[in-house]
């Protein structure tokens, strides 16, 4: 009998409601630690040889299986648990309800990863959407409430596609197992579409940069890890080798980088980079070879670690200054150097510097894409943009760039501790034996040596040239502040409406919200025409008519 870490986490989250003070904090950190220890025991074969299945029960005519423990599920479960420990330490002093929501979110993500059948998968999938919604809402500002609402609509729509697809699929094949899908027409694409909403594949990505920056400092950290990566898991499970995903992923990687150019808000910039980084994973899944799937999974693993670290670093700045726009920050190195160094570990990792975690995972995906030139080019080019923005522009504008315009201090110790854990892991995974351990977790046998001479040189060249380019242009890059403060700037100066539309598109979620609202307002106008209430006499006429209709049916 396997202990399901996800269900235990959800149960733990509910007990959090009853606790307070020190006990609450201990339990809060104990929840992910417990699931990590269950996973370690599982790896050592305590519950049986992987892969195995457990926790099955009959429901109606189907057998539901809560636990399918295999080599694809385990790396995701591991990284979710590890990162949740660091996050919980970081968020030790957050609001209680946010903690509860975050732990339910964490638990349901584990549930998704281990679910074998459609029903279990779907229930956990929806729980994840709802829990994350409450994580966003727990900040309580007007913006976060509105963004959360839009977030909910996106995900409920995605969920509707998913369940419609599943229902059709069950009807066609009679199987309720979530497995490698054969292309069965409509049902296949409906499921794919439902999962793609969660993976934030453009143009279905708008919820991500819209909602994540509106969550609280600690809440946003949780959001980075689970939703998109469990969707990557679902894609890797159900759709490896789907050519469509390969191209979409490559476009996605580039797309996130381009939109990050326009951003002035630190966490929104990082959010666009989630889209970009998930693009690598989606492309890896789309290529579908053993190497590419390994690349996608390992990249999901490291991405969760460094993206959480980056959000924590930016969050720490917001926590102490209350500001998040580059134009309102700068020169903070004097006050918070430790946070800066920890952030930079994340930044080097996302930029795939040798000796950092991103290097051993991202390059595997890029390497696997060699055969398809377009995909390779887009992925390689996005690397440059990634380093430029998260590795250079953001830290430059936040920690340097000018004399400080606001007082600050180091963030609280628990926040630094959470960041330090992740920073340590990012370095550990980038060097021997860390990456060997990472590779041993992957679903397929790995024949890939990250530290070949040529690969190191090529990556270093790319990064060094990017750095010089940035250094020359660094003052120009600060001119961006005007864009966001005044949306008309671009069209007027450049006279080019293309850029205007890009701006519009980057705000897609809000735009759709506005459109829908005005549409609903129009709908209300129609409904404003009050139908006169029908009197009982007319009711009788209707009754008799339908009565006659039914009698007529018997005659035919």
């Amino acid at each position, binding site marked *: 009998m396997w202990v399901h870490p996800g269900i235990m986490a959800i149960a733990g989250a509910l007990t959090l409601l009853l606790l307070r003070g020190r006990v609450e904090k201990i339990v809060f950190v104990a929840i992910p630690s417990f699931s990590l220890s269950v996973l370690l025991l599982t790896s050592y074969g305590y519950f049986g040889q992987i892969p195995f299945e457990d926790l099955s029960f009959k*429901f*109606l005519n189907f057998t539901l299986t809560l636990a399918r423990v295999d080599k694809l599920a385990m790396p995701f479960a591991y990284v979710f648990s590890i990162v949740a420990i660091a996050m919980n330490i970081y968020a030790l002093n957050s609001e209680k309800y946010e903690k509860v929501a975050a732990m339910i979110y964490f638990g349901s993500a584990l549930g998704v990863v281990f679910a074998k059948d459609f029903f279990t998968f*779907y*229930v956990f999938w*929806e*729980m994840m959407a*709802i829990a994350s919604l409450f994580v966003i809402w727990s900040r309580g500002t007007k913006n976060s*409430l509105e963004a959360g*609402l839009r977030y909910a609509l996106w995900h*409920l729509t995605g969920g*509707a596609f998913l*369940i*419609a697809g599943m*229902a*059709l699929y*069950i*009807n066609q094949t009679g199987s309720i197992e979530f497995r490698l899908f054969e292309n069965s027409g409509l049902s296949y694409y409906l499921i794919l579409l439902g999962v793609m909403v969660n993976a934030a594949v453009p143009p279905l990505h708008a919820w991500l940069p819209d909602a994540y920056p509106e969550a609280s400092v600690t809440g946003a950290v949780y959001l980075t890890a689970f939703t998109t990566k469990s969707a990557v898991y679902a894609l890797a499970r159900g759709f490896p080798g789907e050519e469509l995903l390969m191209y979409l992923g490559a476009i996605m990687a580039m797309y996130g980088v381009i939109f990050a150019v326009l951003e002035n808000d630190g966490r929104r910039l990082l959010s666009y980079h989630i889209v970009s980084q998930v693009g690598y994973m989606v492309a890896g899944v789309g290529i579908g070879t053993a190497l590419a799937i390994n690349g996608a999974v390992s990249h999901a693993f490291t991405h969760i670690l460094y993206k959480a670290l980056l959000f924590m670093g930016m969050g720490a700045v917001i926590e102490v200054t209350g500001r998040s726009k580059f134009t309102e920050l700068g020169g903070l190195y004097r006050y918070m150097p430790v946070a800066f160094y920890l952030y930079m570990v994340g930044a080097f990792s996302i930029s795939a510097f040798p000796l950092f975690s991103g290097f051993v995972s991202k390059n595997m995906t890029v390497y696997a894409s060699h055969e398809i030139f377009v995909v390779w080019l887009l992925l390689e080019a996005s690397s440059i943009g990634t380093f430029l923005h998260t590795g250079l522009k953001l830290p430059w504008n936040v920690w340097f760039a000018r004399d400080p315009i606001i007082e600050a201090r180091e963030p609280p110790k628990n926040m630094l501790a959470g960041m330090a854990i992740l920073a340590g892991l990012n370095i550990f995974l980038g060097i021997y034996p860390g990456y060997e351990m990472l590779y041993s977790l992957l679903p397929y046998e790995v024949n890939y040596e990250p530290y070949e001479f040529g690969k190191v040189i090529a990556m270093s060249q790319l990064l060094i040239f990017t750095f010089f380019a940035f250094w020359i242009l660094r003052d120009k890059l600060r001119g961006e502040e005007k864009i966001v403060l005044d949306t008309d700037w671009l069209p007027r100066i450049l006279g080019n409406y293309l850029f205007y539309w890009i701006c519009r598109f980057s705000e897609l979620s809000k735009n759709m919200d506005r459109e829908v609202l005005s549409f*609903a307002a129009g*709908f209300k106008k129609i*409904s404003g025409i*009050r*139908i006169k*209430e*029908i*009197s*009982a006499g*007319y*009711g*009788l006429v*209707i*009754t008799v008519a*339908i*009565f006659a*209709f*039914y*009698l007529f*049916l*018997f005659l*035919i």
Partner: protein
Amino acid sequence: MEAVIEHFPVLAVAISLLSSFTILVTSIYTKRAGYPISLAVTFIQLVMAVLILIGVLTDGTINYWLGGWRPPWGIEYRVDVLGAYVLVIVALFSFFSTVYAKRVVEEEIESSKHPYFYTLWMLLVSGMVGVAVTGDLFNLFVFLEISSLATYALIAMAGRKALIASFNYLVLGAVGISFYLLGTAFLYAATGTLNMYDARVLVSLLYSSKIVQLSFVFYFIGLAMKMALFPFHIWQPNAYEYSPSAVTVIISTALAKINAYALFRIIYSVYTIKFFQNYGIILDATAFVASVGIIAGSLFAIMEKSLKKMLAYSSVANVGYIVLALTLGKWGVYAAASHLLNHSLMKAALFMVAGGFIYRLGARNIDDLEGLGRAMPLSSAAFAMAAVSMIGIPPSAGFVTKLFILLASLDTGRFVFIAVMIASSLLSLVYFWRVIEILYMKGHRERMDEIPASMLYPALLMGILSISAGILWFFNVDMLQQIALALEVK
């Protein structure tokens, strides 16, 4: 124990019938006896109903011959799994509506009329309990009429506007019940029996008889009018809107379900599924009418400004669900049976809170509720939980029904109903979300007193149940299977 349980069906009817006259008599001495007597009696009925259900699940159907007359000559009370289950629903919601009634009745009804109110209230309850236990077509008519007549009077107690609403209901309800009576008369003419299970056997020989067909149409139209299926719903929004809050709760939960149950019973126990296999077009037409009802009810709900009327139209849509599910084979029976409870749970919570808002603030319109999410957190939470369940977000109770209907339409290969389900989910998202948005995101109010405890706790309980019942159903599918088995649906 077994021997005692056999007498429970008739006892359950008898005690509430007697209690209503007792209340009337005691009113000579005190005007306050109505509430405690009703509370005690409904509680005893609830206990009996639960015991009956347990007994039926373990030992099988209970047959009780009134006066020892054998059927088909005498009246037979016959409680199978479905009947026992519906009896529990009726008793449960009668009890909680009674708990809820105390404060609103004190507020809304003149104190001199309280004894009459509770007299009628217990008549209504005994009518409903009777419908659930009887196995006789004419007896069912009598009990339906008892509960309906009590309801007309109860609605009218609220005052001027309620009088008109009640009168409309009276006219349409009387027409409906006479359709039912005509149906019974034709069936009797064709078969010579009034016992349902006798009739079932005899009707099976007469499927092509025009008289039997005519009687079915009479039954269907009559009960559709009673249960407010679109387009027979005309009486319902006003009746719900203007009736006293406690009455709204009981008629929207127990009474609406008992009418649906009567249709359920007639379709599956008298005419049986084989009848419809000969006349598939009838099922298609009924499913079509129900689908139109689901969509139209939701659209009307969006148009409504008044909270209670909005909920009433949502009931129209949900009755559509039940009728649609009845046409969809085995999974459909699961859906219909589970929705009888699910919908009652949700509507109870919603109407209890809506009544509470009227009690505290006199707020009837949705726009008057601004900022109450912070001002009355518990009441609003009860409303929000039930609303979430109505929208059908998993794993709430509402989701279970939708899942079953989904599976049913897959099973029978009629995919168009999946589209109906999705459309109605989206529409209910629109009209319930509007309320939640106004409660939680608009306006600002100071913290104020919650609605009184006797109203709040039933509402909260129903709200919590309407979320968690979704999970409970997963462990209770056995009972649904037994129901389907008892109705010979495979």
